[in-house]
């Protein structure tokens, strides 16, 4: 019922992450409330327009409605909103922004947006990022990688093509090097603004192998609409490890224009 | 029908139109400066450790300006009182003082501005910094062409951070003198104008906006001072109201400074 409604009535697209289910559910519940209200009001609306049209009702009633129902309806609305808010929305958001998977149990990726593309950086096979510094950030070195650090030697840096293993949390540290962009993965039910000067964590857990596009959801200049070159490729763990190996060491500072 | 309560109070609200108007306007002004102050706070707490400047402004001059405005508040009050007791001569004298005080304030302020604009920080190719007030630029000085040199009255420092807190013992101890820098050694050079850093930016914006208010207020007061005579003869009560209203604005502008001074000069 719920999922049928989600996909056939309000038309949510295919879901490909485990974290997305809760989001879809919330959207569905709110829309049930909205529909109930809307239909209720419309029926009432139609009825009064018919019943109290001056053709049918010559003399208006000075007192008007004395019914208590409206007050109850209003209270009901308040109650339901409270439930949705405190029962679902608040805990869900809390989970979203304060309970991140540990780096150990997840695939860690640093993503830096730029006009008009996405840069991503993985710790290499050793699972450790080379040290980075703000003041090293430069056009050719968007992550401010410290070339001297050994741990960084095997790091992986890719452009617009972000691979992740399926059924394992992905922990993203998101930033931008020029203006505000926004990382939107429709199928993962994930949106997060990429804000220069900030490094914002966000997470999702892909459940379906395949190729998904990264949408840039924040107006970022005349290339905003064309900033569609980015993809997230969800693979089996094996394919992913192989891919990561093949890219190992690509993080040495270099230009990606 | 004519517009009522332009002079007399409306019985049930106990206020006349213009006075209510100015209070409402001041409410919006509070929000305006409130917005700017919150910007100041956010920028300051957001600043990287050790980078927010301290002691960059001349506290003595700031204090003098504070006193000037405090005095002008008093003279404004007296000017209004003079109108209340129907003594136009006294009104003239008091508001003359107000105007003079205001102009002195602006004079000192512009001196402070000039001081900041003459103050240069030069980034040298060797990674060090030269910092001080401009003494002279040699005739052939040209950064682009890398010719000539500049002379500052100041000193060299190894790290920009040393320039942040001028109240620190090290900064106090620093020896200042004539330093000559050749254009060939200069990486970049800029004065302590708004674009120097977020502190100078907010400093110039806040005080600049405040100075504009002072200027506006002074002009209004001067107008009443110079051309008020006519209305004084025909409708002294209305004139008195105008003095009260402009006075209210003036007190607000003073109040803003009472916040600006500690926030910018003392912390």
């Amino acid at each position: 019922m719920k999922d049928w409604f989600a996909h056939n009535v309000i038309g949510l697209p295919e879901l490909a992450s485990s974290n997305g289910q809760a989001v879809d559910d919330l959207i569905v519940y709110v829309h049930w409330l909205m529909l109930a209200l809307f239909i209720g009001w419309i029926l009432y609306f139609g009825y009064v327009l018919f019943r109290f049209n001056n053709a049918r009702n010559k003399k208006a009633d000075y007192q008007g409605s004395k019914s208590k129902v409206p007050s109850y309806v209003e209270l009901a609305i308040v109650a339901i909103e409270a439930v949705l808010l405190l029962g679902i929305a608040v805990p869900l958001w809390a989970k979203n922004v304060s309970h991140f998977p540990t780096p150990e149990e997840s695939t860690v990726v640093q993503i830096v947006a730029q006009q008009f593309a996405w840069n991503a950086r993985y710790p290499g096979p050793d699972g450790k990022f080379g040290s980075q510094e703000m003041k090293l950030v430069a056009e050719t070195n968007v992550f401010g990688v410290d070339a001297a650090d050994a741990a960084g030697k095997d790091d992986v840096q890719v452009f617009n093509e972000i691979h992740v293993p399926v059924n394992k949390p992905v922990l993203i540290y998101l930033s931008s090097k020029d203006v505000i962009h926004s990382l939107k993965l429709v199928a993962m039910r994930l949106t997060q603004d990429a804000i220069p000067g900030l490094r914002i964590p966000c997470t999702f857990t892909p459940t379906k192998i395949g190729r998904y596009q990264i949408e840039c959801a924040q107006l970022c200049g005349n290339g905003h609409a064309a900033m569609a070159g980015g993809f997230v490729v969800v693979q089996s763990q094996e394919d992913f490890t192989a891919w990561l190996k093949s890219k190992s060491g690509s993080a040495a500072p270099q230009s990606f224009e | 029908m004519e517009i009522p309560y332009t002079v007399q109070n409306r019985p049930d609200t106990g206020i006349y139109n213009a006075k209510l108007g100015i209070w409402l306007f001041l409410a919006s002004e509070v929000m305006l400066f409130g917005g700017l102050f919150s910007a100041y706070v956010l920028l300051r707490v957001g600043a990287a450790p050790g980078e927010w400047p301290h002691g960059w402004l001349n506290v003595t001059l700031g204090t003098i300006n504070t006193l000037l405005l405090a005095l002008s508040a008093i003279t404004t009050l007296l000017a209004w009182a003079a109108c209340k007791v129907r003594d136009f001569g006294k009104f003239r004298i008091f508001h003359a003082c107000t105007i003079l005080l205001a102009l002195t304030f602006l004079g000192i302020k512009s001196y402070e501005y000039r001081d900041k604009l003459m103050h240069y920080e030069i980034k040298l190719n060797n990674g060090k910094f030269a910092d001080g007030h401009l003494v002279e630029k040699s005739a052939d000085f040209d950064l682009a062409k890398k010719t000539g040199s500049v002379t500052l009255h100041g000193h060299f420092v190894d790290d920009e951070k040393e320039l942040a807190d001028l109240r620190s013992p090290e900064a106090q101890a620093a020896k200042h003198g004539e330093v000559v820098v050749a254009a060939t050694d200069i990486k970049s050079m800029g004065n302590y104008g708004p674009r120097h850093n977020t502190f100078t930016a907010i400093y110039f914006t806040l005080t600049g906006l405040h100075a504009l208010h002072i200027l506006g207020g002074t002009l209004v007061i001067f107008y009443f001072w110079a051309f008020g005579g006519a209305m004084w003869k025909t409708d002294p009560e209305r004139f008195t109201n105008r003095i009260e209203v402009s006075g209210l604005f003036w007190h607000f502008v003073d109040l803003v400074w009472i916040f600006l001074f500690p926030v910018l000069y003392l912390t």
Partner: protein
Amino acid sequence: MQSNVQQFPPFREPQPQHAHDSHGHAEHHEPNFWQKYIFSTDHKVIGIQYGFMSLCFMLFGFFLMLLMRWQIAHPGVPVPVFGPLLEKILGQPAAHGAISPDLYNSFGAMHGTIMVFLGVVPLAFAAFGNYVVPLMIGAPDMTFPRINMASFHAFFLGGVVMLVSFFIPGGAAQAGWTSYSPLATTIPTNGQAFWLVGMVLLITSSLLGAVNFIATIIQLRAPGMTWMRLPWFVWAQFVTAFILLLAFPPLEAAGVLQLMDNLAGTSFFLPTGLAVGGQLVDRSGGGSPLLWQHLFWFLGHPEVYVLILPAMGIVIEVIANNTRKPIWGYKSLVYSVLFVGFLSFIVWAHHMYLTGMGQKIATFFQATTMMISVPSVIILTCMFLSLWGGSIRINTPMLFALGFLPMFGIGGLTGLPLGLAAADLYLHDTYYIIAHFHYVVAPGTIFALFAGVYFWFPKMTGRKMNEFWGRVHFWCSLVFMNLVFMPMFAQGIKGMLRRMSDGAVNYSAARVPNAIDALPGSVMQLNGWILWAAIALGIAQIPFIINLFWSIGHGEKVGTNPWSATTLDWQTPTPPPHGNFAHEPQVVRGPYEYSAPGHAEDFTPQDEPESSAAPLTPTAHH
């Protein structure tokens, strides 16, 4: 109904010509053209000035949108008819008569700005407020007529600056009406600077207006016009004025700061280490992009209630008049609008859920956002219940007022999911947002404004607008508005993003077949349909425009109170003379005394001397 027009206490019959002089202001000579129409201090003239200007701007904003909709439906295809013209005036950005991304972004930003700050606010607040409020409260004029004039001139200048910015090199602002930094600062053209200067002027205009309105409502209420006897429209304007007064200054502050960033090279909103288009930006850095967003939305959200409250006020007046019965729950309406006004100041960050907002703050703003929907529900409920037991009279104003209800309902209800951060997480920046707020501002607010125009036109001109064409205007607008905006919900829910200069073809299955979540062709198809619906919507306005101008000279002549209304604005000569009222009205009852028991007429004007024992307040039964 015509018969009622005669039923007036004689002293309120319109005086012949000399009424103007004997009750006019100090100057006793006939004002010349300039004094009368350009530098007038008469609230009625200023109201009409505002009204005309804002309608023109609205039309212009709509025209921009048509061009955008063409580009969305047919990316890169030269605009038919207007293409060559565009290229001639705008040059490079409109090369080959097609709309480049830069131009699209300019149009988008300016559509938003013009519709909000030069269209709806001046029409809903300044125009109707100026013309109607003093009449409704029985005042001779605004408290500060000269400031009123200054406010209009500031508005006019602001508009001019905005328009001029289209023609400067690089064109108008391109960073959206929200002008987020750093984008707004890093775009290398001057459009943004013009936008900011224009905004400062418009803000000044609104502030002057707000001060004037509040002072007028507090000081110039006629004797007997107690707070609880104010028509609710006046309450709505009162709260609106306060919102403008207190919410606009922070944006003015933000505007000044961004202007410094753009012109003086400061870094208020620029963080350290920005690297734009190749090299590190030569700025000190140390600023905060989020600071701008907070300052903007601190105005931005209250602003949306500025757009809706006066509209609701109009709807209430029209409904009360055409149901021929008192408004249901006048008191709760008053408290609700005050509550909305207050709450609107503490919900702003619901526009910023996805800027990395922490748990506590998000909880606070979700809670306040849900709370603010409650008074809105109450207001809507009062409107709906007022219909019950009425003798509903269907005419053009009433049709638009009734149309407002479900339209605002849809827009408001779709605000709820957005208010919940976790749902907004998915819907943010999709067309769902566009659909949400257009339902409130376009078929919502605009319909209410149309209702107001048709309703008060007879007061301004002494003639009615043509009823038949009015109804044509309504039904066509209703149908096409929905055909324009309803599909946007579908597009949004499928993940189609806003501000896409190519209608999101880059994300469509046609372009990226191998991506699982590419937008299906059906979604892209809607773009084409919306274009035609929008064009039809534009055509549907032609009857209105003609009707409006034609009726000034040829509309059916009517008396001072053609709608048999109770409020004071209908108890003065038509059009009201300078000074409005021949005699200061004495208010003796509430605003909506329709069908009051013991009265011959089915309406009892607020200032009709008490004869029989009629209840004093419309809410006696509460």
